[in-house]
């Protein structure tokens, strides 16, 4: 294995990569000027302050939407694989794809029914329903 030409070319490549990195970092550290200030050590991101308070709270809904997107997007990818071979896979492939799509639809129905797609939390929805209700009653009485 050590005698094969691929081995030596990879070895040279690895050494060259490591050497290049060392030379670039080392030379700039040795030759470059240095100046220190309070803001110098912060990460620079096009003038935007990149650090934010670490106790930032995001709604778990964002995570849920992201997961649904990933799930259904990846499932759709399988359909692309079927789409390029519709003729070759024939009726068996069609039935299998149909079953697959049916299961996806069933899971979408399930998600909708358990309220995973509702943006507002259940407590606020209840509050909103309560707010609408007395206003209507008030309008009728006046």
């Amino acid at each position, binding site marked *: 294995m050590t005698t094969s030409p691929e081995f030596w070319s990879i070895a040279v490549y690895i050494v060259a990569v490591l050497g290049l990195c060392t030379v670039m970092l080392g030379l700039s550290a040795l030759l470059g000027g240095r100046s220190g200030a309070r803001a110098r050590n912060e990460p620079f991101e096009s003038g935007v302050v990149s650090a934010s308070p670490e106790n930032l709270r995001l709604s778990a809904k964002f995570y849920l939407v992201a997961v649904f997107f990933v799930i259904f997007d990846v499932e759709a990818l399988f359909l692309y694989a079927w789409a390029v071979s519709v003729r070759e896979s024939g009726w*068996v492939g069609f039935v299998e794809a149909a079953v697959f799509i*049916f*299961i996806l639809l*069933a*899971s979408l*129905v*399930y998600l*909708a*029914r*358990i309220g995973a797609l509702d943006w507002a939390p259940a407590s606020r929805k209840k509050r909103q329903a309560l707010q609408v209700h007395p206003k209507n009653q008030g309008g009728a009485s006046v």
Partner: protein
Amino acid sequence: MTSVQLWALLPLLIATASIVATMLAIAVYRHHRFCASVTVGGMNLALIAVVYDLITGDNLAVPVTGLMTVDAAARFGMVLILVTTLGVLTLCHAYFEGYKRNREEIYLLIGLGTLGALTLACATHTATLLVGIELLSLPMVAGVAYSMDERRAIEGGIKYLILSAAASAALFFGVALIYAHIGSLDLSAMSQALSAASLDQPLVLAGAAMMIAGLGFKLSLVPFHQWTPDVYESAPTPITAYLATVSKLGVFVVVLRLFHYGSSPISPLILTALVGLAVASMLVGSLLALRQNNLKRLLAYSSIAHFGYLTIVLAVPGDESLRAAGVYLATYLVTSLGVFGVMALVSSPMGERDAEHIDDYRGLFWRRPYLTSILTAMLLSLAGIPLTAGFIGKFAVISAGVGAAQWLLVGSLIVSSAISIYYYLRIVSALFSAVAAGSERVSEPMGWAQSFGGLMLVVAMIVMLWLGVYPQPLYLLSGQLAQH
């Protein structure tokens, strides 16, 4: 796909259909007993399909698409998996009846896990192995963390998620290394490479080590056992039962295919590793169980020891040891279901906390004599006292070990069993001890015998004693494992 292949795959198809049906049932009409019956009905149909296939067919191996083969061993595994799943499902029904939040999703999770186990039972390719193992472990992560309000459950879920992901990564890294050497992903080719492994094949040896680590984690063999007590303790009791039975059973069928079904006996290097794992599991499992006051942790360590006993069959080539594996698995499943079943029934209405401390069981006999009798018999079966199923299982494994002159393994089994009698009898003595009035915590309803869970326990008890007294049919049935 021919009709023969579809027919052979019928149990998996039915299981899949029942999962989708359960999901739709939850979406349409959220009702505990209704959703439970959909899953239970589906699993029963799948079981009928396998049993029908076993009885009427000529039990041929049916290869399906190169990824799976439904052979006699797979059918035997599927029967055990489905029966155990049905037992766990009835426990879930009793246990989650008093649960405050959504109760129905647990059936979905158990159904998915069972589909994974069924896939593993038929797997003959590492792609199927991957799908099966992930399908088996990921729903169980959600199952462990099912009571979301409890900090402990979340902790257990995260622990199980991270550790089982790491174990899967190790397993499939090992698969990749062996693939790099042999150029095939077939389990039979892998098995051949494992039996021919020698010191001048570093890739195969490293791969075998990583595969053993990954599979050892799933079977919780020492030294890959650390997660077991924590996760067992934090999971709801029926899920603990599931983890201890179905989850390990599915993996063990694959382990048999990898390490036992090769045409030549296993390579001495790998044999040494397996013997080491088995001896360590038996001794460490039993010794760590000695000081446990928490019943779930104790049973976790005892299950480590039990799978140490079962690993003996991997060290013994030949069909006789496969038969022993079948007998041992069946007796272990019945007994574990019984023990966890009593725990689940005793715990269920408390809601807040499972009855798992040994003090919760002190003097239980004087309040719940029948339930306690079942628990006592099951614990004696775990200890391997004659006339119980556990004795038959242990006997089969010992006779396999003696037949191959594996004295180290047989010796550790005897030492470990002797230690284990102490901690099982410690529970039994707590069950029968006198208790001061007013200090009892356990309060399961008196109507336990009428519930499905109670019925399941009585059946498990009868099966356990029947296997202990008349094991001949089980011996014959276990011969299925040897036909592959």
